[in-house]
């Protein structure tokens, strides 16, 4: 300790700064990837659902242009996701819009590069853009499209959705602020530790303590400061998870609609909710494609569970005194009614583990 010099202090400071920046930076990147992934899979899941609907309708015996009731379906698509600005379906041959959530778009040609991208390889195409005929205003927008195939595997058209990217930008900005604040806190903790060590060396004569007592006092002080580190890091992750909530709930809403649509179609055709065939495997497939989803439940209107995938028990706890069942911290749950002729016949509920990044990546 006697050889502890100014250079040692500077060196330690630099090392601590580097360690903090690496850890916080890595955490930010992990959560940012998760947020971007959630946002992208939400859009892709919604577009896949719309594409499946259009293809199924075509398979029943009509051309894309002849399909009826598509505008209502497109309007529903826009209503389901607050980030969707508009959605349209264009003909691959002519490049003209056949159906659009904005009626004025119908008949307008789409940009040539959309046609080229639709004709290209891959199931989805993405494009970030800020201007052009379909980008009014100054908001940042993102285009996601997917080709529509007919029953003989010919690309007949493309469904394209315009997404606002400001929600994602807001979440990212909040996460950046959280990262900055956490970095500052950790640097201050490091500085406090360093200062306590320096103080114990520099002013050892002024403290009338024995050598052993002094060591214990310094150790306790260091321990107090160091114990703040995991607390600060845990708090950072919790704030990140809280920042992610709008994205998680947005995706949950899309997944719920993907589950509700076939369920309502089956019920409308006369399948009793309790007798729905293959519900568990269908739900399990959705969970497999969206690993943040902890459970999917299909209940009757009184809340009795009829079909279940995943572990709902993990997300809930019952109060020992009152018996009231509540959601545990770190889990998000959303539900939508299953309707038949405007009557609610059941509920679809999904649970999302908000800590999936923490549990899977750290």
């Amino acid at each position: 300790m006697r050889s502890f010099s100014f250079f040692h202090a500077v060196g330690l400071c630099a090392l601590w700064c580097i360690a903090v920046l690496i850890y916080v930076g890595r955490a930010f990147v992990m959560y940012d990837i998760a947020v971007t992934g959630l946002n992208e899979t939400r859009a892709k899941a919604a577009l896949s659902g719309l594409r499946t609907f259009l293809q199924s309708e075509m398979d029943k015996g009509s051309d894309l242009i002849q399909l009826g009731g598509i505008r209502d379906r497109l309007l529903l698509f826009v209503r389901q996701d607050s980030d969707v600005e508009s959605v349209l379906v264009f003909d691959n041959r002519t490049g003209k819009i056949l159906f659009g959530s904005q009626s004025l778009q119908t008949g307008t040609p789409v940009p040539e590069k959309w046609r080229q991208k639709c004709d290209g390889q891959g199931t989805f195409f993405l494009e970030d853009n800020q201007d052009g005929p379909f980008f009014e205003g100054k908001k940042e927008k993102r285009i996601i499209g997917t080709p529509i195939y007919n029953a003989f595997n010919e690309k007949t058209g493309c469904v394209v959705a315009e997404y606002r990217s400001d929600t994602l930008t807001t979440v990212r900005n909040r996460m950046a602020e959280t990262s900055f604040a956490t970095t500052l806190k950790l640097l201050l903790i490091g500085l406090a530790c360093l200062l306590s060590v320096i103080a114990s060396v520099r002013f050892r004569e002024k403290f009338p303590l024995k050598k052993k007592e002094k060591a214990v006092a310094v150790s306790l002080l260091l321990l107090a400061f160091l114990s703040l580190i995991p607390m600060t890091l845990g708090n950072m992750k919790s704030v990140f998870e809280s920042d992610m909530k709008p994205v998680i709930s947005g995706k949950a809403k899309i997944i719920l609609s993907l589950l509700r649509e076939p369920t309502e179609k089956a019920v409308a055709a006369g399948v009793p909710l309790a007798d729905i065939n293959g519900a568990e495997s269908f739900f399990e497939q959705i969970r497999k494609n969206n690993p943040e989803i902890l459970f999917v439940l299909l209940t009757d209107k009184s809340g009795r569970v009829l079909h279940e995938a995943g572990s709902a028990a993990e997300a809930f706890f019952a109060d020992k005194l009152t018996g009231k069942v509540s959601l545990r911290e770190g889990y998000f749950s959303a539900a939508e009614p299953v309707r038949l002729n405007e009557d609610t016949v059941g509920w679809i509920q999904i649970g999302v583990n908000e800590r999936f990044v923490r549990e899977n990546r750290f």
Partner: protein
Amino acid sequence: MKGSSVKIVFDILFVLCLLFVRSASADVPKRIYLALWDGCEEACRGFKDYLQAERANVILIERNAGKDPDRIAGFVEEIKASSPDLLVTWGTYLTLKTVGTEKEALQARFSVGVPTVFMVVSQPVESGLVSALVSQGRNMTGVPNLVPVSEQLQAARQFLPFKRLALIYNPAEVNATVAAAQVKKYAALMDFEVIDKPLLTRGEDQADSNAVANAVAEAAQKKADLIYLGPDAFMNVQRDILTETATSFGIPVFSAAEGAVRNGGALFAYVNRYYTVGRFAGVKALKILRNKVPAYDIPIETPQRGVYVVNMTAATQLKTYPPLSFVQATDFVNIPDNQ
């Protein structure tokens, strides 16, 4: 010098003439002779819609036999006389009567000498129209309407995981025996047991209708999970006896054609829609006319995606419903009134 100038002028005029002739020939509409059995139904509509969507420069010479076999000979004479650019035929019977089987193709009455696209021919190989679906020698291609048996069985299994499949068919019918043989071929591969119930024949091609109910009862005794109703004219007439008896034993019926589901008591079918078949025939027609691909180089194939047709009245009686993952691609028919 003067002579060479004249030659140059003539050369230029010659080249311009060639270009004019070439562009004029490209603009000449192609003539398609469309031979129909019973008017322009869904497949014909799909075919026409596809040509229209593709803005094909064609003249359609549409002829309708009106289910009268005697008119077909007249079609053949007209085709030979007018030499259209393409012949499109509808249905197995009309196609065979127009262009003959592969063995008959060299006979004078069938040599129409025109590339042909057929549609709604259930079994082109088994009916003798062509020797194979790909790499066959006739100047012909087309779109069968029946989903291949292997795909039908896979679709049936995804709907209802069966272990024992009962085959009840008229052994006097070629289509029915061919389908039965194919089902038996796939049984080992797909690991299911076939309960083979060819019906007793009365005379040359008539099976005993009473035998249908007995065959179903025997299949039930052998614990059949599903009954396969193939392309079988006799069974199609007897399908109500078949489905009613099967339902009374709690056995679902899977049909190769949607008629038995839509208008009968069969539980489900996995089919190609005629409209889609017609559109696909349009794709093949334009490959021949626009891209100059020889018809024999274009594979004979069905559309790649079929549709489940589910009879909800039968489903409710049997308490057997389609899996949720198929619901979006399912056409529900005969939905009970209380829904």
